[in-house]
């Protein structure tokens, strides 16, 4: 059993800290249980069950720190890992950026754990996959998909009295359906804390509809177009921006948040007024832990408010150096939406492109956060308020910062998953003008 209750974890870490002889000692414990099934060609290809439990110890003398970890939990092993961390700390050079450990803090309880998700079994995963495979067969398509559920817990405690515990559950599902001729492809991805919200049959039907609807795509000329990005596409584009909400890299002059001539863009109107981005551990659709590993309580934090840079994250070290207040990065990211549906957005579009999914996004230029990548699994041409026909995929070269300056409309926020990082976000569908496509792709 790799999931410990708060009381079990507290008792274990108290015992570990009792072995400590260093000036400061921090211990953390994390465990996961879960499983996955991968399938392709309408049959299961691989499946696995994973269970882990790891204890890490960091010991500090002055500004010298050593760390060690172990996955054995008898008393002798617990003492051994503490001694090893202390031995390493005594021999380590000073870390000029070391900050003393934080003392006791008060954390609100998180809402990240759902028993139904924790109760998932190989059989329930197989049932979810069986529904998806059957729906794909019924639509005469080939399905390739993946389902994974995780139950996890994290604890941090230190010799100054800090103690923080969190337990959470997650399930992610993604499905790609392709027709036999290889001329149509569709995709859907879903992520939840609560598996009862997961409808693999419904998601497969969405992917199947995209696959059948995207067959026979026509080529159009690359160029600047109004685009409607479905949440999966928009998510993948703007998650690359969240890492840049960091004061240090901005102050050092090497991020899109750097101000020409020095300093950062805090307070600047960097995006359209409709853009609001924040973190909130208590959002019921995307809850997160209520503390970070340094021991900071996590609260709602606005990053972009009405298009202005409202906050940047400051580590304790960088905050002290700059005379600022420390501010941790968010554990989740949420972008506010509007009340339009995708259908509303299509209706109001004279000429444009509906994008279902983006793929292989890579940074081209850190200065402007220019990204390149391609559309995938359902790209459609819109004219006079209607979808006219599927179009071939295209490569774009666009910056999410420029893109969020060109917002025409936002839709209802949805929870979606990044295709590459597998992180979940709450992101609206968005209608963007002047989105730059630079070449055609024959890929289906």
């Amino acid at each position, binding site marked *: 059993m790799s999931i410990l209750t708060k009381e079990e974890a507290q008792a274990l870490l108290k015992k570990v800290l009792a072995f400590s002889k260093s000036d400061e000692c921090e211990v953390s414990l994390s465990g996961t249980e879960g499983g996955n099934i991968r399938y392709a060609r309408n049959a299961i290809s691989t499946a696995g069950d994973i269970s882990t439990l790891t204890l890490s110890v960091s010991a500090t003398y002055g500004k010298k720190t050593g760390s060690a970890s172990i996955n054995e939990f008898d008393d002798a092993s617990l003492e051994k890992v503490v001694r090893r961390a202390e031995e390493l700390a005594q021999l380590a050079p000073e870390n000029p950026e070391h900050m003393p450990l934080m003392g006791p803090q008060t954390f609100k309880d998180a809402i990240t754990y759902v028993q139904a998700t924790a109760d998932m079994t190989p059989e329930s995963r197989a049932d979810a996959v069986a529904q998806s495979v059957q729906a794909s067969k019924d639509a005469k398509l080939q399905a390739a998909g993946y389902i994974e559920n995780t139950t996890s817990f994290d604890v941090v405690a230190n010799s100054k009295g800090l103690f923080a515990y969190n337990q959470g559950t997650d399930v992610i599902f993604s499905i790609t359906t392709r027709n036999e001729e290889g001329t149509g492809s569709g995709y859907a991805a879903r992520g939840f804390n609560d598996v009862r919200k997961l409808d693999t049959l419904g998601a497969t039907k969405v992917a199947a509809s995209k696959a059948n609807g995207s067959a026979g795509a026509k080529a159009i000329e690359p160029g600047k177009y109004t685009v409607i990005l479905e949440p999966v596409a928009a998510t993948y584009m703007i998650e690359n921006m969240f890492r840049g909400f960091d004061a240090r890299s901005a102050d050092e002059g090497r991020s899109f948040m750097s101000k020409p001539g020095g300093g950062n863009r805090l307070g600047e109107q960097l995006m359209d007024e409709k853009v609001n981005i924040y973190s909130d551990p208590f959002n019921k659709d995307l809850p997160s832990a209520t503390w970070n590993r340094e021991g900071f309580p996590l609260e709602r934090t606005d990053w972009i408010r009405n298009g202005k840079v409202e906050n940047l994250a400051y580590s304790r070290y960088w905050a002290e150096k700059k005379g600022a207040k420390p501010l941790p990065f968010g554990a989740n990211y949420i972008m506010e939406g509007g009340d339009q549906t995708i259908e509303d957005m299509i209706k109001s579009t004279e000429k444009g492109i509906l994008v279902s999914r983006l793929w292989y996004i890579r940074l081209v230029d850190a200065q402007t956060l220019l990204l390149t990548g391609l559309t995938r699994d359902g790209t459609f041409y819109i004219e006079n308020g209607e979808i006219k026909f599927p179009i071939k995929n295209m490569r774009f*070269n666009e910056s999410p910062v420029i893109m969020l300056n060109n917002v025409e409309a936002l839709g209802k926020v949805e929870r979606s998953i990044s295709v590459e990082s597998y992180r979940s976000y709450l992101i609206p569908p968005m209608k963007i003008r002047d989105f730059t496509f630079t070449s055609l792709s024959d890929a289906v």
Partner: protein
Amino acid sequence: MKRKEFLQWSAMGLGAFMVPSLPAFARAIDPAEALNEGIDVRLKKELADVALSAAKAKGATYADVRIGRYLNQFVLTRENRVQNVANTESFGVGIRVIANGCWGFAATNKVTKEDIARTAERAVAVAKANSRVPADPVQLAPQKGYGEVAWKTPIETSAFSVPVKDKVDLLLKVNSIAMGAGANFVNSGIFASNEQKYFASTDGSYIDQDIHRIYPQFNVTKIDKASGKFETRASLSSPMGMGYEYLTPTPEAKVSGIVTRYKDRYDMLEDVKNAAADVTQKISAKSVEPGKYDLLLDPSHLWLTIHESVAHPTELDRVLGYEANYAGTSFLTLDKWRSGNFQFGSKLVNIVADKAQPHSLGAVGYDDEGVAPKKWDLIKDGVLVNYQAIRDQAHIIGLKESQGCCYAQSWSDVQFQRMPNVSLQPGKDTLSVDDMIKNIKKGIYIIGNGSFSIDQQRYNFQFGGQTFYEIKEGKITGMLKDVAYQANTREFWNSCSAIADKRDYRLGGAFNDGKGQPSQSNAVSHGSSTARFDGVNVINTARKIG
């Protein structure tokens, strides 16, 4: 090596650094522990036999077992300080079986006979559970048992036996040279890995292997304070399947030219000096005029284009659709291969797969399902002639045996088809890079790999680079910036009009190539000589924000 010397440098900032792509059970250890021998090979055989017997007893028709000890070391520095030194170890057993015609897999980090037997039974149970969803039974290509055999990467010095202090000293010297030459920031690091893995199967193989890889690298940043613009230049090193001897430069391993590049031995101090000069030049370089150019691509750049546009689309599992939900499928469909005349590239283009290539990242004695590696043609005189296949795929393309390119990143992950080293063969005629430059009227010479992106069937790609040199009327006229080229894979390879001869042949490579769900990493090399591609579309990537 004395334990104290290891310890002295082992704890700097450990814990702050997120080690990438670690297997599930990797744990931090002190560097001295990396030199432990691990368990005796006779005991490994006993444990392996327990797994095979337990699987067969439960009804498996085939079973293999991998007992793995995976070591990694990361030494990271920034400017004048050490950011982190992390040594990790992961040890355990993975068991794969066929039962009821289906694959099953299970793994444990408890390496006792009892736990291994239970894990083998769990693997059979998973296979039987999976067989409830109808599918064609697994067809496994025959493989002879090799008996008890061993293989080791032919290294001179294990990177793990070199004191961490020596690595730190080298990296801080690298940083000092960069800062002394006017850089504003510099990061540098040395990554080393060692896979100690024991494989046994019901075919009668007992294979003990010791595989080493190393990756030194840096990134230099220069900021123009007046404009607020910044530029970077990364190292021109390649990760290699070598020991620490890779970091002992020799004159004969240097390739001279507009900037010095390296093969088989790497001079990190020289390269960072050149990088600092390059990055300064890059800031004031001319922004490229978009249009068609003849491209001259150095092996330090071309390896990544080969990786994305040739190596991935010739993976048979991708062709068949097993990767469709993640990285995609392939435009190299079976009908194109069956036709026997699909012109992938120009007649100059010969691309081989070679899992045993010396010094390469993918070099092993046996793959992760007990097959000795082979060398075979993928593209012959420009025509698609083969794919990359493993035992359960061989029959699909009419092979009587596997091509030996099965791999798992750890004992805790199931093995599947991963690319072997895939390389462009040098030109057959005598041709130097200087000769090639003389023949270009309007071109760009690209060195080092930068941004990269390709579609899910591997047609449309875009690549950047580290440094770009304009060629006009047969001469290099200066540095360019904001360069990226876009092409369609088939058109690009058919535009290949010249390849330098074998004197210029070098390996590049990827230390962490991702594939699969859940995603796994693979290390793989790609060799080439400098090659020319005519009339490729170049775009300008400069933009303005705010």
